[in-house]
C-alpha cells in the first residue's frame, strides 16, 4: 500500500517523458496527392472542410464506372497502361517497411528518365505487400510504399501531379508462394507507364 503511492507519480513522470520523446522523431516529408479526383459525392472541391451536399438516400442514381464519371476531369483517364516498359524497375521493400533501399536508386532514376523523356506520359505506382500482415494494415502499407516511390521521383524532378498511386495490399501477389522468396517479390512498388490514347 505504501509503495503504490510512490509508484504512481514515478510512473506518471516516466510516461510523460516517454510521450515527450516519442513526439520528436520526424521521418521524411510527404507530398500531397494530385487533387484532380472529386473528393466527396456532389462536392467538386476534393479538399478541405466546407460542407458537402446534404444527404438524400434517394439521390445520385446508379454508380457510373470508368470514363463515365462526371464533374471531375480525371487526369488519368483515357490512358493506356504499359506494364512492360518499366517492369524491370519494380522496387522491393524490407518486411513491414516503406523505406526505399539505396540499392534501388538506379531503378528510380530509370523511371524518372522515362517520364522526363516523354512529357505526355504519366505514371501509376501500384503498391503491394506480402501475406504476413493483416488486411487493412497491408492496404495502408502498400499505399505508403507507392507514395514513397512517388516522393523519391518528385525529389528527382518529376512533377508529382503526373503520378497516381494505388495500393492492392496483399490482394494481388506477384508470387502466390508461402516462402521468403515469394514474400520478397510481393513487397513491392510496380511502375505502370501511362500514355494518352491515340486520337484523344
Amino acid at each position, binding site marked *: 500500500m505504501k509503495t503504490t503511492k510512490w509508484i*504512481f507519480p514515478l510512473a506518471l513522470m516516466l510516461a510523460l517523458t516517454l510521450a515527450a520523446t516519442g513526439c520528436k522523431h520526424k521521418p521524411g516529408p510527404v507530398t500531397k*496527392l494530385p487533387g484532380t479526383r472529386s*473528393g466527396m459525392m456532389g462536392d467538386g472541391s476534393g479538399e478541405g472542410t466546407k*460542407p458537402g451536399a446534404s444527404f438524400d438516400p434517394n439521390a445520385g442514381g446508379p454508380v457510373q464506372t470508368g470514363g463515365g464519371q462526371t464533374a471531375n476531369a480525371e487526369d488519368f483517364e483515357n490512358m493506356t497502361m504499359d506494364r512492360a516498359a518499366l517492369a524491370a524497375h519494380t522496387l522491393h521493400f524490407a518486411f513491414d517497411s*516503406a523505406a526505399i533501399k539505396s540499392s534501388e536508386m538506379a531503378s528510380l532514376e530509370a523511371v524518372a528518365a522515362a517520364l522526363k523523356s516523354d512529357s505526355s506520359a504519366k505514371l501509376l505506382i501500384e503498391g503491394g505487400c506480402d501475406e504476413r500482415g493483416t488486411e*487493412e494494415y497491408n492496404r495502408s502499407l502498400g*499505399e505508403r510504399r507507392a507514395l514513397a516511390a512517388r516522393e523519391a521521383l518528385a525529389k528527382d524532378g518529376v512533377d508529382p501531379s503526373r503520378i497516381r498511386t494505388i495500393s492492392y495490399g496483399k490482394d*494481388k501477389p506477384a508470387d502466390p508462394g508461402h516462402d521468403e522468396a515469394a514474400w520478397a517479390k510481393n513487397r513491392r512498388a510496380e511502375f505502370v507507364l501511362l500514355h494518352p490514347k491515340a486520337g484523344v
Partner: protein
Amino acid sequence: MKNTFLFSINIGLLGLLAIAAPESSRAQNEINIQSEITVMGRAKPVPVSLEGFTGEAAEVLRFDLWVQGFSFVAPDAAQYRISGSGSGSVQGRVIDAISKQTKFSRSYTGATLRKQAHAFADDIVETITGKKGIGQTKVAFKAQSPGGAGEIYIADFDGHNPQAVTRDNAIVAAPAWAPGRALFYTSYEPGNPDIFYHNLSNGERRIVAKFSGLNTSAAISPDGTRMALILSKSGSPDVWVCGVDGSHLKQLTATPVDESSPCWSPDGQWICFATKMGERRVLAKVPAGGGAAQRIPTSGVSNPTEPDWSPDGKWIAFTSQMGGFDICLVPAAGGAATVLVAGEDPSWSPNSRTLVCTRRAGGRYTLSVLDAMTKQVKDIGRISGNDSQPAWAK
C-alpha cells in the same frame, strides 16, 4: 541544516502524495477491472443439458449457446436443464437443476424453424445471464477468390442465409455497418479504392469518398452520423472523419507513417486506430473532434492491428502478430493484453462477449465465432474462396 533537509523531504513527500491523492477511488476502479480481466478468456461455461431436440433446432441451440458461453453436459451434471422439441415448431422449457424451478416454458411459431430456435436460444440466454441474446443478428464480410476479386456478403451470424450485396467481381474490402440497414465498403470497381454507401433496403448505392490514392476502412459512429476513414490524399494514409454524407471532412492524424483500421468508442468520443510509433506497431486513439493521439498500450503482445471497441466500452479486441496471428483483448484504457485464440480481424457482437473473426486454415480464410469469456469457438459456413473482414451489425 538537518531540519531544512527533513523539511524539504517532507515537502517533497507531500507533493508526491498530492499527486497520488486520487489513489483510493482509482484503486476501487482497478479492482473492478481486475476481476473482469481474470474472467475474460478464462470463464467457466454455464453447463446445460439439451433433451428432446433434434435436427435443425438442435443444431441452432448448440451453436447459439456455445458461442454465448454455455457447454453441454448430461442432465444430472447440468446447472440448467433445457428440454422440449423442435419438429414442426419449437417449444421448450428451462429448469434450474438446483432449485428445481421452471424458469420459463414457451412455444414458438411463425417465420422459420431456424428463427424459432434462435428466438428460444435468445430467451435461454436472457433468462440465465440477464443479457440479450444475439440469435437474430447479422454479419457482413467479404468473400475473395485467389485472383483478388470478390464480393461483399451479409449472412446470419451463424453463417446461414448468405446473400451477396455486390455483383461487381472487383476487389472489395472492409465492410462496415451503419444503423438502418446500410453498409459502407471499399471497392476497386471504379478503378481505384473508393468507399461506397450501400442501402440494403433498396439496393441503391453511391460513392462517398473518391479522393486520389487510398479511400478505405470506413467506420460509422454509433449514432450513425459520422464516418471515420483512411485517406492517403494528404501524402500518407491518415485517419480522417466526416459526416456520413462526406461533409465537414477533417484530418485527425498527420503522420508520415501509415494509419489503418479506425474504430469508434461506443460513446462516439474517440477513434481508436492502428499506427506506428518509433517504428513499432501500436494502437492509439484520437478525440473524434480532433486533438492529440494517445497510445493504447498492449502489454505482453506485439504488433497490434485491426482494433474493435466493445459496445459496452470496456474492451478493445484486436489482432496481434507474433509469428502467427492471434485475437487479443486489452482493457479500453490500455494495459495487459489477453490472448484468446488464433485468428484475425475481430468484430464485437452487441453482447460485448461474442466476437466474429477470420482464421487461416490450410492456406484459406474461414470465419469463426468466438466467446471471449470462455474461448469457445466455432467456424461458420464458408462461401467459396477466402472469407474475411467480418463486421457484426450492432
